[in-house]
Protein backbone atom coordinates (compact mmCIF):
# COMPACT_ATOMS: atom_id res chain seq x y z
CA UNK A 1 0.00 0.00 0.00
CA UNK A 2 2.84 2.38 0.87
CA UNK A 3 5.71 2.92 -1.51
CA UNK A 4 9.20 4.33 -1.51
CA UNK A 5 11.00 5.48 1.66
CA UNK A 6 7.92 5.13 3.88
CA UNK A 7 7.47 1.49 2.89
CA UNK A 8 11.13 0.77 3.47
CA UNK A 9 11.04 2.41 6.94
CA UNK A 10 7.94 0.37 7.90
CA UNK A 11 9.72 -2.79 6.73
CA UNK A 12 12.86 -1.98 8.73
CA UNK A 13 10.91 -1.12 11.90
CA UNK A 14 8.87 -4.29 11.50
CA UNK A 15 12.05 -6.38 11.72
CA UNK A 16 12.66 -5.19 15.29
CA UNK A 17 11.71 -7.42 18.24
CA UNK A 18 8.23 -6.84 19.59
CA UNK A 19 7.21 -4.53 16.74
CA UNK A 20 4.51 -5.86 14.44
CA UNK A 21 3.30 -4.36 11.15
CA UNK A 22 0.75 -2.07 12.87
CA UNK A 23 3.27 -0.71 15.39
CA UNK A 24 5.82 -0.23 12.61
CA UNK A 25 3.26 1.74 10.63
CA UNK A 26 2.38 3.87 13.67
CA UNK A 27 6.03 4.70 14.44
CA UNK A 28 6.75 5.46 10.77
CA UNK A 29 3.84 7.92 10.61
CA UNK A 30 4.94 9.51 13.89
CA UNK A 31 8.41 10.05 12.41
CA UNK A 32 6.89 11.38 9.20
CA UNK A 33 5.06 14.06 11.15
CA UNK A 34 7.89 14.80 13.63
CA UNK A 35 10.20 17.83 13.10
CA UNK A 36 13.30 17.07 11.01
CA UNK A 37 15.68 17.86 13.91
CA UNK A 38 13.97 15.24 16.13
CA UNK A 39 14.29 12.61 13.44
CA UNK A 40 17.92 13.58 12.77
CA UNK A 41 18.70 13.32 16.47
CA UNK A 42 17.17 9.84 16.59
CA UNK A 43 19.01 8.61 13.50
CA UNK A 44 22.30 10.04 14.80
CA UNK A 45 21.76 8.38 18.17
CA UNK A 46 21.27 5.01 16.47
CA UNK A 47 24.37 5.38 14.29
CA UNK A 48 26.58 6.67 17.14
CA UNK A 49 25.35 3.89 19.45
CA UNK A 50 26.21 1.29 16.84
CA UNK A 51 29.63 2.79 16.08
CA UNK A 52 30.82 3.48 19.62
CA UNK A 53 29.35 0.66 21.69
CA UNK A 54 31.69 -2.23 22.34
CA UNK A 55 32.08 -4.94 24.93
CA UNK A 56 34.32 -4.45 27.96
CA UNK A 57 37.48 -6.49 27.48
CA UNK A 58 37.34 -7.76 31.08
CA UNK A 59 33.71 -8.46 31.98
CA UNK A 60 31.99 -8.24 28.55
CA UNK A 61 29.52 -5.64 29.79
CA UNK A 62 28.53 -2.87 27.40
CA UNK A 63 31.26 -0.23 27.19
CA UNK A 64 32.11 2.73 24.99
CA UNK A 65 34.83 3.19 22.42
CA UNK A 66 36.73 -0.04 23.11
CA UNK A 67 37.57 0.84 26.73
CA UNK A 68 36.56 -0.70 30.03
CA UNK A 69 32.98 -0.52 31.28
CA UNK A 70 32.04 1.80 34.15
CA UNK A 71 32.18 -1.03 36.70
CA UNK A 72 35.59 -2.39 35.70
CA UNK A 73 36.92 1.17 35.48
CA UNK A 74 35.79 1.95 39.04
CA UNK A 75 38.68 1.40 41.49
CA UNK A 76 36.25 1.54 44.44
CA UNK A 77 34.64 -1.76 43.40
CA UNK A 78 35.46 -4.90 45.36
CA UNK A 79 37.47 -7.12 43.04
CA UNK A 80 37.18 -10.16 45.30
CA UNK A 81 33.50 -10.74 44.54
CA UNK A 82 32.34 -11.57 41.04
CA UNK A 83 28.69 -11.61 40.05
CA UNK A 84 27.92 -13.78 36.99
CA UNK A 85 24.97 -12.63 34.87
CA UNK A 86 23.50 -13.77 31.56
CA UNK A 87 22.99 -10.38 29.96
CA UNK A 88 24.26 -6.78 30.35
CA UNK A 89 20.68 -5.78 31.27
CA UNK A 90 20.95 -8.00 34.33
CA UNK A 91 23.79 -5.79 35.59
CA UNK A 92 21.40 -2.83 35.51
CA UNK A 93 18.86 -4.85 37.54
CA UNK A 94 21.46 -5.81 40.17
CA UNK A 95 22.83 -2.26 40.30
CA UNK A 96 19.34 -0.93 41.02
CA UNK A 97 19.40 -2.81 44.33
CA UNK A 98 22.42 -0.76 45.57
CA UNK A 99 23.42 -3.87 47.53
CA UNK A 100 26.28 -5.18 45.44
CA UNK A 101 29.67 -3.49 45.26
CA UNK A 102 31.68 -6.20 43.54
CA UNK A 103 32.44 -6.75 39.88
CA UNK A 104 30.57 -8.58 37.13
CA UNK A 105 31.06 -11.10 34.37
CA UNK A 106 28.54 -11.30 31.53
CA UNK A 107 28.07 -14.71 29.91
CA UNK A 108 25.98 -13.36 27.00
CA UNK A 109 23.41 -16.12 27.21
CA UNK A 110 22.64 -19.32 29.07
CA UNK A 111 23.10 -22.97 28.26
CA UNK A 112 20.18 -24.00 26.11
CA UNK A 113 20.40 -27.55 24.75
CA UNK A 114 17.21 -27.12 22.71
CA UNK A 115 18.69 -24.16 20.85
CA UNK A 116 22.11 -25.74 20.57
CA UNK A 117 23.74 -23.20 22.92
CA UNK A 118 26.58 -24.96 24.70
CA UNK A 119 29.45 -23.76 26.92
CA UNK A 120 31.52 -22.76 23.88
CA UNK A 121 28.97 -20.16 22.84
CA UNK A 122 29.17 -18.39 26.22
CA UNK A 123 31.96 -16.40 27.90
CA UNK A 124 32.78 -19.31 30.20
CA UNK A 125 36.40 -19.85 29.15
CA UNK A 126 36.98 -16.13 29.77
CA UNK A 127 35.39 -16.48 33.22
CA UNK A 128 37.70 -19.34 34.14
CA UNK A 129 40.66 -17.28 32.97
CA UNK A 130 39.57 -14.38 35.21
CA UNK A 131 39.14 -16.70 38.18
CA UNK A 132 42.66 -17.99 37.57
CA UNK A 133 44.26 -14.57 37.17
CA UNK A 134 42.34 -12.22 39.48
CA UNK A 135 42.20 -12.28 43.30
CA UNK A 136 38.58 -13.52 43.35
CA UNK A 137 37.33 -15.05 46.61
CA UNK A 138 33.62 -15.47 45.80
CA UNK A 139 31.62 -16.02 42.64
CA UNK A 140 27.89 -15.29 42.82
CA UNK A 141 25.87 -17.17 40.19
CA UNK A 142 23.18 -14.66 39.26
CA UNK A 143 21.63 -16.38 36.24
CA UNK A 144 17.87 -16.41 35.66
CA UNK A 145 15.88 -18.85 37.82
CA UNK A 146 14.55 -20.75 34.80
CA UNK A 147 15.58 -24.11 33.33
CA UNK A 148 18.40 -22.66 31.20
CA UNK A 149 19.67 -20.34 33.95
CA UNK A 150 19.64 -23.12 36.54
CA UNK A 151 21.48 -25.50 34.19
CA UNK A 152 24.08 -22.79 33.56
CA UNK A 153 24.49 -22.20 37.29
CA UNK A 154 24.92 -25.93 37.95
CA UNK A 155 27.44 -26.22 35.13
CA UNK A 156 29.47 -23.25 36.40
CA UNK A 157 29.33 -24.53 39.98
CA UNK A 158 30.76 -27.84 38.78
CA UNK A 159 33.56 -26.08 36.86
CA UNK A 160 34.36 -23.67 39.68
CA UNK A 161 34.41 -26.44 42.29
CA UNK A 162 37.84 -27.33 40.89
CA UNK A 163 39.15 -23.90 41.94
CA UNK A 164 39.64 -22.30 45.34
CA UNK A 165 36.85 -19.71 45.02
CA UNK A 166 33.67 -19.85 47.03
CA UNK A 167 30.63 -20.34 44.76
CA UNK A 168 27.22 -19.01 45.80
CA UNK A 169 23.82 -18.85 44.08
CA UNK A 170 21.35 -16.00 44.47
CA UNK A 171 18.44 -16.96 46.71
CA UNK A 172 15.17 -18.02 45.14
CA UNK A 173 11.80 -17.40 46.71
CA UNK A 174 8.72 -15.23 46.87
CA UNK A 175 8.53 -11.73 45.39
CA UNK A 176 8.00 -8.93 47.89
CA UNK A 177 4.37 -7.86 47.66
CA UNK A 178 3.21 -11.23 46.34
CA UNK A 179 0.50 -13.47 47.77
CA UNK A 180 1.52 -16.78 49.33
CA UNK A 181 -1.61 -18.56 48.08
CA UNK A 182 -0.66 -17.84 44.46
CA UNK A 183 2.92 -19.05 44.86
CA UNK A 184 3.79 -22.06 42.75
CA UNK A 185 5.09 -25.19 44.44
CA UNK A 186 8.62 -24.94 43.09
CA UNK A 187 9.14 -21.34 44.18
CA UNK A 188 7.50 -21.86 47.58
CA UNK A 189 9.53 -25.04 48.08
CA UNK A 190 12.73 -23.14 47.39
CA UNK A 191 11.63 -20.31 49.65
CA UNK A 192 11.23 -22.86 52.44
CA UNK A 193 14.60 -24.44 51.65
CA UNK A 194 16.27 -21.03 51.79
CA UNK A 195 14.49 -19.80 54.92
CA UNK A 196 16.50 -17.52 57.21
CA UNK A 197 16.82 -17.55 60.96
CA UNK A 198 15.36 -14.29 62.20
CA UNK A 199 16.72 -14.71 65.72
CA UNK A 200 20.35 -14.70 64.58
CA UNK A 201 22.30 -11.68 65.82
CA UNK A 202 23.79 -9.76 62.92
CA UNK A 203 26.03 -6.73 63.17
CA UNK A 204 25.38 -6.46 66.89
CA UNK A 205 21.59 -6.31 66.60
CA UNK A 206 18.82 -8.82 66.03
CA UNK A 207 17.08 -8.69 62.69
CA UNK A 208 13.63 -8.79 64.22
Amino acid at each position, binding site marked *: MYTGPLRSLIDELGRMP*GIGPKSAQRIAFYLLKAPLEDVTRLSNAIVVMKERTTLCSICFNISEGGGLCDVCDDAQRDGSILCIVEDPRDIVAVERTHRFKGRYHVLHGA*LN*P*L*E*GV*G*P*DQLKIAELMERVGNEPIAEVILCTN*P*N*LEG*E*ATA*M*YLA*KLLSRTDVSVTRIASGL*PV*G*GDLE*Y*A*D*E*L*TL*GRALDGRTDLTTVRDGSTTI
Partner: protein
Amino acid sequence: MSLFSDRGVVLRTYKLGEADRIVVILTEGHGKIRAVAKGVRRTTSKFGARLEPLSHVSLLVWSGRSDLDIINQAEIVDTFRTIREDLDRVPKGISLLEVADQISQEGLADPRLYQMLVGALRALSDTAWNPELVAPAFFLKVLGLEGSAPVLDACASCGARPSSSIGRDSDRHIAAERTPERATEDEAGDLVELVAFDLVVGGMLCQGCRRGRAVSAEALDLMRRILNGSLSGVLRGVQPGSEEVTQIATEAMETHLDRRLRSVRSAVGA
Protein backbone atom coordinates in the same frame (compact mmCIF):
# COMPACT_ATOMS: atom_id res chain seq x y z
CA MET B 1 -14.00 -20.25 20.70
CA SER B 2 -14.01 -22.32 23.83
CA LEU B 3 -12.48 -22.88 27.21
CA PHE B 4 -11.01 -26.30 27.90
CA SER B 5 -9.07 -27.99 30.66
CA ASP B 6 -6.42 -30.61 30.13
CA ARG B 7 -3.18 -31.97 31.51
CA GLY B 8 0.11 -31.50 29.75
CA VAL B 9 3.88 -31.33 29.84
CA VAL B 10 5.58 -28.04 28.94
CA LEU B 11 7.93 -28.83 26.05
CA ARG B 12 9.50 -25.44 25.43
CA THR B 13 8.89 -21.72 25.70
CA TYR B 14 9.62 -18.63 23.62
CA LYS B 15 9.76 -15.05 24.81
CA LEU B 16 6.91 -12.92 23.52
CA GLY B 17 6.78 -9.13 23.81
CA GLU B 18 7.65 -7.42 27.07
CA ALA B 19 6.76 -10.04 29.67
CA ASP B 20 4.83 -12.86 27.96
CA ARG B 21 5.85 -16.25 26.71
CA ILE B 22 4.57 -18.64 24.08
CA VAL B 23 4.41 -22.03 25.78
CA VAL B 24 4.41 -25.27 23.77
CA ILE B 25 2.63 -28.02 25.68
CA LEU B 26 1.97 -31.68 24.90
CA THR B 27 -1.51 -32.25 26.29
CA GLU B 28 -3.28 -35.50 26.87
CA GLY B 29 -6.53 -34.69 25.07
CA HIS B 30 -5.68 -31.91 22.63
CA GLY B 31 -2.27 -32.92 21.29
CA LYS B 32 0.42 -30.29 21.09
CA ILE B 33 -0.82 -26.77 21.75
CA ARG B 34 0.87 -23.40 21.53
CA ALA B 35 -0.50 -20.92 24.01
CA VAL B 36 0.35 -17.48 25.35
CA ALA B 37 1.09 -17.14 29.07
CA LYS B 38 0.61 -13.46 29.76
CA GLY B 39 3.00 -11.72 32.14
CA VAL B 40 4.76 -14.99 32.99
CA ARG B 41 8.23 -13.39 32.94
CA ARG B 42 7.32 -10.91 35.67
CA THR B 43 8.40 -11.91 39.17
CA THR B 44 4.84 -11.32 40.37
CA SER B 45 3.30 -13.58 37.73
CA LYS B 46 0.51 -15.84 38.98
CA PHE B 47 1.97 -18.65 36.86
CA GLY B 48 5.42 -18.45 38.49
CA ALA B 49 7.55 -21.46 37.67
CA ARG B 50 4.59 -23.58 36.62
CA LEU B 51 5.09 -23.04 32.91
CA GLU B 52 8.79 -23.84 32.73
CA PRO B 53 9.89 -26.69 30.42
CA LEU B 54 9.61 -30.13 32.13
CA SER B 55 6.63 -29.03 34.26
CA HIS B 56 3.68 -31.41 34.27
CA VAL B 57 0.66 -29.18 34.69
CA SER B 58 -3.10 -29.09 34.82
CA LEU B 59 -4.34 -26.28 32.58
CA LEU B 60 -7.33 -24.14 31.80
CA VAL B 61 -6.91 -22.82 28.27
CA TRP B 62 -8.90 -20.37 26.19
CA SER B 63 -8.95 -21.33 22.55
CA GLY B 64 -9.98 -18.36 20.44
CA ARG B 65 -9.79 -17.41 16.78
CA SER B 66 -6.04 -16.89 16.88
CA ASP B 67 -3.52 -19.65 16.18
CA LEU B 68 -2.32 -19.18 19.73
CA ASP B 69 -4.44 -20.22 22.69
CA ILE B 70 -4.31 -18.32 25.98
CA ILE B 71 -3.49 -19.97 29.30
CA ASN B 72 -5.97 -18.90 31.95
CA GLN B 73 -4.86 -21.11 34.84
CA ALA B 74 -2.06 -23.56 35.51
CA GLU B 75 -1.54 -25.87 38.46
CA ILE B 76 1.41 -28.14 39.06
CA VAL B 77 0.95 -31.90 38.82
CA ASP B 78 4.69 -32.59 39.05
CA THR B 79 7.71 -30.27 38.82
CA PHE B 80 10.25 -33.10 38.32
CA ARG B 81 12.56 -31.24 40.66
CA THR B 82 15.06 -34.10 40.74
CA ILE B 83 15.65 -33.65 37.02
CA ARG B 84 15.92 -29.86 37.22
CA GLU B 85 18.46 -29.90 39.99
CA ASP B 86 20.79 -32.53 38.56
CA LEU B 87 23.18 -31.43 35.82
CA ASP B 88 23.35 -34.97 34.42
CA ARG B 89 19.59 -35.37 34.26
CA VAL B 90 18.73 -31.95 32.74
CA PRO B 91 19.99 -32.70 29.17
CA LYS B 92 18.35 -36.14 29.30
CA GLY B 93 15.03 -34.59 30.32
CA ILE B 94 15.32 -31.94 27.63
CA SER B 95 16.05 -34.59 25.00
CA LEU B 96 12.74 -36.28 25.93
CA LEU B 97 10.98 -32.95 25.43
CA GLU B 98 12.75 -32.32 22.11
CA VAL B 99 11.68 -35.69 20.71
CA ALA B 100 8.10 -35.30 21.98
CA ASP B 101 8.00 -31.83 20.39
CA GLN B 102 9.22 -33.17 17.04
CA ILE B 103 6.93 -36.22 17.01
CA SER B 104 3.70 -34.65 18.24
CA GLN B 105 1.38 -32.65 16.02
CA GLU B 106 -0.64 -29.58 16.88
CA GLY B 107 -4.27 -30.29 17.62
CA LEU B 108 -3.91 -34.05 17.10
CA ALA B 109 -4.39 -35.87 20.41
CA ASP B 110 -1.91 -38.67 21.05
CA PRO B 111 -2.58 -39.90 24.60
CA ARG B 112 -0.03 -42.74 24.28
CA LEU B 113 2.81 -40.36 23.45
CA TYR B 114 1.73 -38.13 26.34
CA GLN B 115 1.66 -41.10 28.74
CA MET B 116 5.04 -42.31 27.51
CA LEU B 117 6.56 -38.85 28.04
CA VAL B 118 5.14 -38.54 31.55
CA GLY B 119 6.31 -42.08 32.35
CA ALA B 120 9.80 -41.36 31.03
CA LEU B 121 10.04 -38.14 33.06
CA ARG B 122 8.91 -40.00 36.17
CA ALA B 123 11.51 -42.70 35.56
CA LEU B 124 14.19 -40.05 35.01
CA SER B 125 13.28 -38.26 38.23
CA ASP B 126 13.30 -41.48 40.27
CA THR B 127 16.71 -41.74 41.90
CA ALA B 128 16.22 -45.48 42.44
CA TRP B 129 16.49 -46.04 38.68
CA ASN B 130 19.48 -45.65 36.40
CA PRO B 131 18.94 -42.46 34.35
CA GLU B 132 21.34 -43.46 31.56
CA LEU B 133 18.89 -45.63 29.61
CA VAL B 134 15.69 -43.62 30.12
CA ALA B 135 16.12 -41.39 27.05
CA PRO B 136 17.28 -44.15 24.65
CA ALA B 137 14.46 -46.42 25.87
CA PHE B 138 12.00 -43.56 25.26
CA PHE B 139 13.38 -43.05 21.75
CA LEU B 140 13.02 -46.76 20.92
CA LYS B 141 9.49 -46.90 22.37
CA VAL B 142 8.46 -43.77 20.45
CA LEU B 143 9.84 -45.30 17.25
CA GLY B 144 7.64 -48.31 17.98
CA LEU B 145 4.66 -46.02 18.50
CA GLU B 146 5.39 -44.40 15.15
CA GLY B 147 5.48 -47.79 13.46
CA SER B 148 9.23 -47.58 12.94
CA ALA B 149 10.48 -49.89 15.67
CA PRO B 150 13.89 -51.30 14.76
CA VAL B 151 13.87 -54.91 13.57
CA LEU B 152 15.81 -56.80 16.22
CA ASP B 153 14.79 -60.45 15.91
CA ALA B 154 15.78 -61.11 12.32
CA CYS B 155 18.04 -59.70 9.66
CA ALA B 156 16.26 -56.58 8.43
CA SER B 157 17.71 -57.10 4.97
CA CYS B 158 17.30 -60.82 4.11
CA GLY B 159 14.89 -61.88 6.86
CA ALA B 160 17.08 -64.63 8.26
CA ARG B 161 16.61 -65.28 11.94
CA PRO B 162 18.97 -66.51 14.61
CA SER B 163 17.95 -69.95 15.85
CA SER B 164 17.22 -68.52 19.32
CA SER B 165 14.46 -66.27 17.99
CA ILE B 166 12.52 -68.78 15.84
CA GLY B 167 8.97 -69.08 17.06
CA ARG B 168 8.63 -65.50 18.33
CA ASP B 169 5.32 -63.95 17.29
CA SER B 170 6.99 -60.70 16.33
CA ASP B 171 9.06 -62.48 13.68
CA ARG B 172 6.29 -64.22 11.83
CA HIS B 173 5.67 -61.39 9.40
CA ILE B 174 9.38 -61.21 8.64
CA ALA B 175 9.67 -64.95 8.19
CA ALA B 176 6.80 -64.86 5.74
CA GLU B 177 8.72 -62.41 3.56
CA ARG B 178 11.92 -64.46 3.45
CA THR B 179 13.13 -65.77 0.15
CA PRO B 180 12.61 -69.53 -0.36
CA GLU B 181 16.37 -70.01 -0.85
CA ARG B 182 17.19 -68.36 2.49
CA ALA B 183 14.45 -70.27 4.29
CA THR B 184 15.85 -73.53 2.99
CA GLU B 185 19.32 -72.59 4.22
CA ASP B 186 17.95 -71.86 7.73
CA GLU B 187 16.00 -75.08 7.85
CA ALA B 188 19.15 -76.92 6.86
CA GLY B 189 20.70 -75.71 10.10
CA ASP B 190 22.55 -72.56 8.96
CA LEU B 191 23.00 -70.54 12.18
CA VAL B 192 22.53 -66.82 11.65
CA GLU B 193 23.98 -64.25 14.00
CA LEU B 194 22.77 -60.63 14.04
CA VAL B 195 25.90 -58.51 14.23
CA ALA B 196 25.27 -55.01 12.91
CA PHE B 197 22.66 -52.25 12.92
CA ASP B 198 21.83 -50.32 9.79
CA LEU B 199 19.90 -47.08 10.07
CA VAL B 200 18.71 -47.13 6.47
CA VAL B 201 16.90 -50.47 6.69
CA GLY B 202 16.06 -49.80 10.33
CA GLY B 203 17.27 -52.90 12.06
CA MET B 204 19.83 -55.58 12.75
CA LEU B 205 21.72 -57.32 9.96
CA CYS B 206 23.23 -60.78 9.75
CA GLN B 207 26.87 -61.53 8.99
CA GLY B 208 26.12 -61.92 5.27
CA CYS B 209 24.28 -58.60 4.92
CA ARG B 210 26.51 -56.80 7.39
CA ARG B 211 26.91 -53.02 7.03
CA GLY B 212 26.54 -50.02 9.33
CA ARG B 213 27.45 -50.12 13.02
CA ALA B 214 28.67 -53.30 14.72
CA VAL B 215 26.44 -54.27 17.66
CA SER B 216 27.38 -56.45 20.62
CA ALA B 217 25.15 -59.26 21.85
CA GLU B 218 24.63 -57.35 25.14
CA ALA B 219 23.36 -54.25 23.33
CA LEU B 220 21.03 -56.32 21.15
CA ASP B 221 19.63 -58.09 24.21
CA LEU B 222 19.14 -54.74 25.95
CA MET B 223 17.19 -53.28 23.03
CA ARG B 224 15.02 -56.40 22.86
CA ARG B 225 14.26 -56.16 26.57
CA ILE B 226 13.37 -52.47 26.23
CA LEU B 227 10.92 -53.12 23.39
CA ASN B 228 9.50 -56.38 24.75
CA GLY B 229 8.09 -55.08 28.02
CA SER B 230 11.05 -55.51 30.39
CA LEU B 231 11.85 -51.81 30.69
CA SER B 232 11.57 -51.62 34.47
CA GLY B 233 14.10 -54.45 34.77
CA VAL B 234 16.43 -52.66 32.37
CA LEU B 235 16.32 -49.41 34.32
CA ARG B 236 17.35 -51.07 37.59
CA GLY B 237 21.10 -50.86 37.77
CA VAL B 238 23.88 -50.48 35.24
CA GLN B 239 23.47 -52.60 32.09
CA PRO B 240 26.28 -53.76 29.79
CA GLY B 241 25.85 -52.35 26.28
CA SER B 242 24.14 -49.14 27.52
CA GLU B 243 26.41 -46.80 25.57
CA GLU B 244 25.87 -48.73 22.34
CA VAL B 245 22.10 -48.67 22.84
CA THR B 246 22.21 -44.92 23.55
CA GLN B 247 24.09 -44.32 20.29
CA ILE B 248 21.84 -46.59 18.23
CA ALA B 249 18.59 -45.23 19.68
CA THR B 250 19.73 -41.62 19.19
CA GLU B 251 20.85 -42.21 15.60
CA ALA B 252 17.67 -44.18 14.81
CA MET B 253 15.54 -41.34 16.17
CA GLU B 254 17.56 -38.74 14.26
CA THR B 255 17.15 -40.77 11.06
CA HIS B 256 13.40 -41.03 11.69
CA LEU B 257 13.07 -37.28 12.36
CA ASP B 258 15.55 -36.40 9.59
CA ARG B 259 17.25 -33.90 11.89
CA ARG B 260 19.88 -33.81 14.60
CA LEU B 261 18.78 -33.90 18.23
CA ARG B 262 20.42 -30.76 19.59
CA SER B 263 19.83 -31.62 23.24
CA VAL B 264 21.56 -34.99 22.94
CA ARG B 265 24.55 -33.47 21.17
CA SER B 266 24.79 -30.70 23.76
CA ALA B 267 27.87 -30.79 25.98
CA VAL B 268 26.02 -29.47 29.03
CA GLY B 269 26.21 -32.66 30.97
CA ALA B 270 29.82 -33.31 30.07
